[in-house]
C-alpha cells in the first residue's frame, strides 16, 4: 500500500484560537476517509491545511513521501511557488461550488489544465469531455453556471477539480449548501469516485454516506482525533462519550425502515 498523504503533529491556530491541536494521519492510495465532528471541531481547517489554503502553524504535511516546504531554524518555510504547484496536485470541492460565473461549464473545467498545466487545446478539450461525462454533465458543456441547479453546479465543480487529475481529492461539506433533493446526485458522484479508487478526504454530515462509502471514519473534537476506525466501529459502536453525544444528536429523528423502500 502506497502512502499518498501523511500528516504529522499538525497544529493550526488563528491568533489565540487553537483550532488544530496535533493531528496525525496516514492516508493510503485509494482510501476514502470521512471526517466527522461538531462545528468548530477543526475538520474544515484540517482539510484546508492539506492543500495549504491555510498555512499550518506547526507540524508537517508529507505528500507522496515528500515533505512540503523547507525546514528552517524557526519552523517550516513555504514558498508560494511550491504551494501553487502542490495545490495543482490536490483537488478541492467547496460547500459553495464557487464556479466561475463568467465561463461556461466546459471553460470552467478547462481553466485549470489550460492556465496551470499549460495543456494544449486538444488535451484541455479531452479532459473537459472526459470529466464532464464522468459526472454526467457532458450535455451541459455549453451552459453557464447560473443556468444549472445546485447539484449540477457542484458536479461541475467536482469535474473541474478532477480535470487536474489530482492525487487526492478533498471535499469540504460538498452537499451542505444543497436542497435535500439534490444531495443524492452529488453523493452518488462521490461514491463512484471512491469506487474507482480515488483517494479522498471527505468532511460531511451525511452519516449514511459515511457508513456506506468510508474505509475509515475520523471523529474530531477540539482539534484532535477523538476516535477513529472503520465505519461500523465509530458510527455503530462508538467508545468515546463525545462521539456518542454527536451521533445521538444526529439520530434523534428517524424514518421507520419501510418508508425508505
Amino acid at each position, binding site marked *: 500500500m502506497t502512502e499518498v498523504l501523511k500528516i504529522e503533529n499538525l497544529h493550526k491556530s488563528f491568533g489565540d484560537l487553537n483550532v488544530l491541536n496535533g493531528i496525525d494521519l496516514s492516508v493510503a492510495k485509494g482510501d476514502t476517509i470521512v471526517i466527522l465532528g461538531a462545528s468548530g471541531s477543526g475538520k474544515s481547517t484540517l482539510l484546508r491545511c492539506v492543500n495549504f489554503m491555510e498555512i499550518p502553524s506547526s507540524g508537517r504535511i508529507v505528500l507522496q513521501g515528500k515533505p512540503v516546504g523547507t525546514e528552517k531554524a524557526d519552523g517550516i518555510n513555504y514558498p508560494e511557488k511550491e504551494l501553487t504547484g*502542490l*495545490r*495543482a496536485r490536490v*483537488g478541492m470541492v467547496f460547500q459553495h461550488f464557487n464556479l466561475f460565473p463568467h465561463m461556461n461549464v466546459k471553460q470552467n473545467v478547462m481553466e485549470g489544465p489550460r492556465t*496551470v498545466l499549460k495543456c494544449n487545446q486538444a488535451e484541455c478539450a479531452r479532459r473537459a469531455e472526459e470529466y464532464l461525462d464522468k459526472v454526467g454533465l457532458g450535455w451541459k458543456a455549453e451552459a453557464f453556471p447560473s443556468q444549472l441547479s445546485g447539484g449540477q453546479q457542484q458536479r461541475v465543480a467536482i469535474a473541474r477539480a478532477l480535470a487536474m487529475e489530482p492525487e487526492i481529492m478533498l471535499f469540504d461539506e460538498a452537499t451542505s449548501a444543497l436542497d435535500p433533493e439534490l444531495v443524492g446526485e452529488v453523493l452518488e458522484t462521490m461514491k463512484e469516485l471512491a469506487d474507482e479508487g480515488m483517494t479522498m478526504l471527505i468532511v460531511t454530515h451525511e452519516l449514511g454516506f459515511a457508513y456506506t462509502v468510508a474505509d475509515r471514519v475520523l471523529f474530531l473534537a477540539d482539534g484532535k482525533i477523538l476516535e477513529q476506525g472503520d465505519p461500523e466501529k465509530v458510527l455503530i459502536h462508538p467508545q468515546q462519550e463525545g462521539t456518542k453525544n454527536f451521533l445521538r444528536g444526529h439520530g434523534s429523528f428517524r424514518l421507520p425502515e419501510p418508508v425508505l423502500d
Partner: protein
Amino acid sequence: MQAGSFIVGYEWDFSVVFRDFDLLLLGLVNTLKVTGLALLFGIPLGLLLALLRLYGNAVLRIPASFLIEFLRTTPPIAQLFWFFFAMPILLGVEIDPFEASVLTFSLQSSAFFAEVFRGGILSIDNGQWEAAKAIGMNRNDTLRRVILPQAVKRMIPAFLERAIELMKTTTLVSTISYADLLYQANTIAQSTYRSLEVFTVAAAMYFVVIFICSLAVQRLEHHLGRTGELTKG
C-alpha cells in the same frame, strides 16, 4: 418685469452658429481627443494604481495610495494650471495646452478609475479566489482570468459615470486656451454677440454625444446580462 419682456422680445438667430459650425465641430473633435486620450491612458494607469494599492508592498502601496488621494482631493483646475504653468518652470520643458490637458486628465482620471477598479475587485466573492487557488492558479492568473473579467462587468456603470464626468471636466482646458468645444463656443459668442444661441448649441452637442454613449453602454450591459454572465454562479 424687465427681464421677462426682454426674453419675450428676443429674436433668436442661429444662422451665426451654423455659419461657424465647423469651428464648433473642430472644438468637439478636440474635446473628444482629450477625453479619449485621457481614457486611453487613465484606465490602464488606474488599473495599475489599484493593483499597487491592493497588493503592492509598502514601498509601492503607500505612494500609490497617496497619489490616488492627492489627485482625487485637489481641484482639477489647480492640477491643470500646475502642469501647464508650474511644471515647465520646475523641469525646464515646454508643454503646449494639448499636452498639458492630456497629461492632467489622464492622471486625474486614473485616480478615479483606480478606485473604481479597487471597488470592483473587492466586490468579487472570496470564494472565487479560493476556487482558483484550489486548482493551483497563482495570484496574477487569478486576477487576469477570474477576478478582473467579473469585476470589469460590474464596473461598467461606474466606468460610464466617470467617463461622462471626465468629458464634462475637460471643459476646464478652455482656461489654458486649448480649443475644445467650450473654448470655440466662447470665441464665436464673443465675436457674434450671440451667446444664447452659441452656448445653447454647444450644450446640445455635449448632450447628444454623452447621451449616445450612455445608450451604447446600456445596450452593452443588457447584452452581457442576457448571456447569463452577469448573474452570480
